[in-house]
């Protein structure tokens, strides 16, 4: 037993010794950590710099925020651009193109049921069409050049080589900067020319419920503009204002707006641009390839009565009551209509908002009321198709 106890005591002592050997060297460290303050120079200052709570900074060198030591948001902006804007934007644009392609393959071109009637209804005046194509020109120039700047590094550099793409990108950047200031002008003109009749009404929600008759053949009721067109109008206005404001912040870099403002403006500019271009693809498709009889409203200003009846039945009824269906696109008459200062009802009879209900009878019109008096178009065929 005593031998056993001696063994246990020896074990206990050796364990204690081991513990001492292990722990004792740590004591100076513990003392140092608890007691001694190393007076490292400027430690608080650099801690503050690292914690981004710097005091006042100054530099003799003039420049855009040259007194700022570190640009904190630069890396956030870089991550946004390279990991969110570029890939998600590409996915959105390609997805939209894919959806349109599938839609075209499945649904085909939306044709006028029963064919064209040959009878014309005036829809957009000269000024409206000029404004539309001005905005379209500026939008296409800005959109294409902007896409080159966003995706050229991934798509065009392999094709053109760095020098070739450098030339392309330089040309695109200059066009983008120069056409940029025209965009707010075009958007303002759009607001004034197309604002009337673009406020949402109850029937627009019914139109949305029926998906605008895109699927199947049941057409939804619609006035001068349908729900989709109103959505596109308001998207254009809102996106256009956002693009214009952020674009103007970006275009003159030495205006004292600073780096953060430009980075934030760029984020908004990029996000809205991708959304705007994506939406515009749908607008361009349905206005040209996707629907028979739609594009002519923006080229010569008239639409076929059958198309009007099918897609804008309430507006058609209104035009019929105003005696504006079946005008001939004869030059003299057109000029008379465009030049008549009292006549501002090209496509939209004056003084009347779109009726909510097609059964509502039009109010009495004075002899000087808007619209073409029947006498002005005696030869116009009036039959409905």
């Amino acid at each position, binding site marked *: 037993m005593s031998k056993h106890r001696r063994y246990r005591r020896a074990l206990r002592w050796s364990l204690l010794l081991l513990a001492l050997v292990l722990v004792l060297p740590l004591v100076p460290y513990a003392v140092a950590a608890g007691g*001694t303050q*190393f*007076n*490292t*120079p*400027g430690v*608080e*200052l650099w801690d503050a*710099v690292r914690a981004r709570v*710097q*005091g*006042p*900074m*100054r*530099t*003799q*060198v*003039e*420049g*855009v*925020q*040259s*007194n*700022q*030591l*570190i*640009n*904190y948001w*630069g*890396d956030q*902006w*870089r991550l946004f*651009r*390279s990991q969110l804007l570029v890939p998600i934007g590409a996915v959105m644009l390609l997805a939209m193109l894919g959806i349109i392609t599938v839609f075209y393959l499945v649904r085909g071109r939306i044709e006028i049921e029963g064919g064209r009637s040959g009878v014309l209804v005036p829809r957009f005046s000269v000024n409206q069409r000029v404004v539309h194509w001005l905005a379209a020109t500026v939008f296409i120039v800005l959109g294409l050049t902007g896409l080159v*700047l*966003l995706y*050229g*590094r991934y798509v065009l*550099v392999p094709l053109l080589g*760095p*020098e070739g*793409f*450098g030339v392309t*990108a*330089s040309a695109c*950047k*200059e066009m983008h*900067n120069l056409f940029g200031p025209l965009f707010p002008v075009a958007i303002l003109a759009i607001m004034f020319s197309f604002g009337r009749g673009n406020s949402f009404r109850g029937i627009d929600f019914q139109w949305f419920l029926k998906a605008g008759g895109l699927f199947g053949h049941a057409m939804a009721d619609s006035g001068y503009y349908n729900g989709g067109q109103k959505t596109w109008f308001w998207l254009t206005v809102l996106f256009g204002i956002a693009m214009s404001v952020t674009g103007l912040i970006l275009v003159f*870099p*030495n205006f004292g707006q600073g*780096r953060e403002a*430009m*980075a934030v403006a*760029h984020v908004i500019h990029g996000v809205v641009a991708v959304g705007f271009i994506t939406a515009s693809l749908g607008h361009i498709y349905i206005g040209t390839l996707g629907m028979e009889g739609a594009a002519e409203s923006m080229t010569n200003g008239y639409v076929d009565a059958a198309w009007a009846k099918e897609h804008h039945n309430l507006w058609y009824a209104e035009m019929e009551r105003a005696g504006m269906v079946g005008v001939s696109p004869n030059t003299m008459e057109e000029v008379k209509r465009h030049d008549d200062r009292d006549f501002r009802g090209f496509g939209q009879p004056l003084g009347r908002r779109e009726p909510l209900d097609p059964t509502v009878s039009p109010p009495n019109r004075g002899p000087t009321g808007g619209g073409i008096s029947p006498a002005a178009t005696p030869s116009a065929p009036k039959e409905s198709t």
Partner: protein
Amino acid sequence: MARMKFFCDAERCIECNGCVTACKNANEVPWGINRRRVVTLNDGEPGERSLSVACMHCSDAPCQAVCPVDCFYQTEDGLVLHDKDICIGCGYCFYACPFGAPQFPSEGAFGSRGKMDKCTFCAGGPEETASAEEQRKYGANRLAEGKLPACAEMCATKALLAGDADEVADIYRERVAYRGAVGMATGWGVGYGKPGIRSNTIDLTGKAAGRD
């Protein structure tokens, strides 16, 4: 190859702006642009510090990552340079750079926005080395002549160090060790040692032992 680096020792920088001037002189940078600047923290207060800042020639350079025309490239020395023939002056590198190194020209020759300009570590650009074209677009190519950047060579207090990363690190490590040894016991106040002092020969009272 060496990995080139700048390092500014804030304990030595006295905000004389000699580096800024040397850079402008060596590179004849465009009007309104300073490739290097000195930033002073807590100016006029006790414990103010100054740092000379320019392009730090990052390994993973944000400017290179965001450039829409991919005009930045890294040399074998680890320098981040850009090709002004390809640059379109969009300014994305300026947004992304942590140090504000790439800059918009204030006014291009023909009044357009022009190309971005940035520190080249006095290593010129993609043009033929020491050509007039290189000098015009990018400034001096001192590296090709076996010299270090003008800013660092001009620095009166040797606060701004430039060169091979290992050597810069060695010099700074030596300084820190010396300061640390001094500072621990006596507080900061004798920052500048004398030639030949090595940290391992200093006792804790700050007195150098066994120096010649």
